[in-house]
């Protein structure tokens, strides 16, 4: 039951983009078209779930036994970078159709702070490996939801007459602010 609450909280209440500000770069950059937004969401879900699992395992069975927990930042960023490379090579070789769908987004995820952020949050909140992986997956679904909603709004917004200085980045920020207010409604789920 607790694990379901953690998942709902990670996905909706503490939405990774709209309330924790992780993964903003991708959120802004890949939200112009709904198809690419969805592709990015899918790639993030894939990598984030896998990264939470691998980082959880390495932390539990390698860093803790050797009392080098303080190396977690260095270890996690290298794991994420290596994992992304590996996933890219693996899907290219064995799952070409998946590679077609995710390929171009994968390299962008290495430095997506949501991936490292969730791995660190899992350690900070002392989640076990299963809870951590579910937390990672739910966070990624929250990211997917937010980026797809933003892309739908932006596709409509193309036809609006936005004042000069507000064109582009500022209006997207203001849209995100309104989305963030809307997501406050989910706080009642707690």
């Amino acid at each position, binding site marked *: 039951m607790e694990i379901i609450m953690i998942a709902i909280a990670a996905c909706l209440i503490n939405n990774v983009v709209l*309330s924790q500000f992780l993964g903003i770069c991708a959120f*802004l950059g890949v939200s112009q078209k709904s198809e690419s937004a969805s592709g990015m969401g899918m790639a993030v879900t894939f990598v984030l779930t896998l990264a939470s699992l691998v980082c959880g395992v390495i932390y539990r069975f390698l860093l803790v036994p050797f009392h080098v927990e303080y190396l*977690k*930042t260095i270890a996690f960023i290298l794991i994420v*970078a290596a994992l992304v490379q590996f996933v890219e090579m693996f899907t290219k070789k064995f799952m070409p159709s998946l590679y077609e769908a995710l390929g171009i987004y994968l*390299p962008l995820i290495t430095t997506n702070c949501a991936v490292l952020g969730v791995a660190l949050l899992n350690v900070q909140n002392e989640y076990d490996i299963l809870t951590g992986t579910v937390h990672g997956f739910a966070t990624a679904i929250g990211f997917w939801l937010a980026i797809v909603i933003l892309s739908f709004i932006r596709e409509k917004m193309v036809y609006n007459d936005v004042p000069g200085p507000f064109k582009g*980045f500022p209006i997207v920020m203001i849209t995100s602010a309104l989305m963030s207010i809307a997501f406050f409604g989910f706080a009642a789920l707690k």
Partner: protein
Amino acid sequence: MRLKKDTPVERIWNGIYIENPVFCLILGMCPTLATTTSALNGVGMGVSTMIILMLAEFIISLIRGIIPDRMRMPAYIVVIASFVTIVDFLMEGFTPALYDSLGIYIPLIVVNCIIMGRAEAYAGKMKPVSALFDGLGMGLGFTIALFLLGSVREIIGAGTWFGIKVTPASYVPVNIFVLAPGAFLVLGFLVAVMNKLKIGAGRRPGVDPTQGNMCGDCANCMKLGMCGGKTECIAAEATGKEEV
């Protein structure tokens, strides 16, 4: 204002105004939005990023000759992550209150686009002293942006500035400005003001990640070429043409 290239003064002015990482290059958005709930938090984040940026750029510039070209990304990551870990420890020891309020965003300095972007775009090619001052300039630009954002949010949202009450007693603080939506809103308006100033001065507005073909993750994907040229590189073009 025209300054000789790659001198300390030029680098600092470049970081603060010409290529301000937040307002012009739109880099490092995650800490910018997340840690500016008050002016003090904003400055704390800005200064710690600045220190890491200077040290990392200096060291990367020193070792640029001995890193094989294909291994430079992982090498940069290790250098940056080491400094982040050191700063993380120092802050935990000496500024525990700030450490608690910045929380997870201190280790996340590792993935701050500004640091990777400058390492690749500047420190990997230039002399150590220029790189050090480039780090100082960019870091100051980042700190000033965070200070501005934090001040606006704190004054409107809590009626205080660096924890001191500055608004009249009749003012009711608009709480939402210190919450998540306020961050997006204030940054949107500040960038719009910067754009207005630039259009007024006859300069083109800065880089806009939202207009990219695929990704706005400029520092990471575009300048680092990690996408292998599969995506259109708008940001790099725009910064290249930016008149100085």
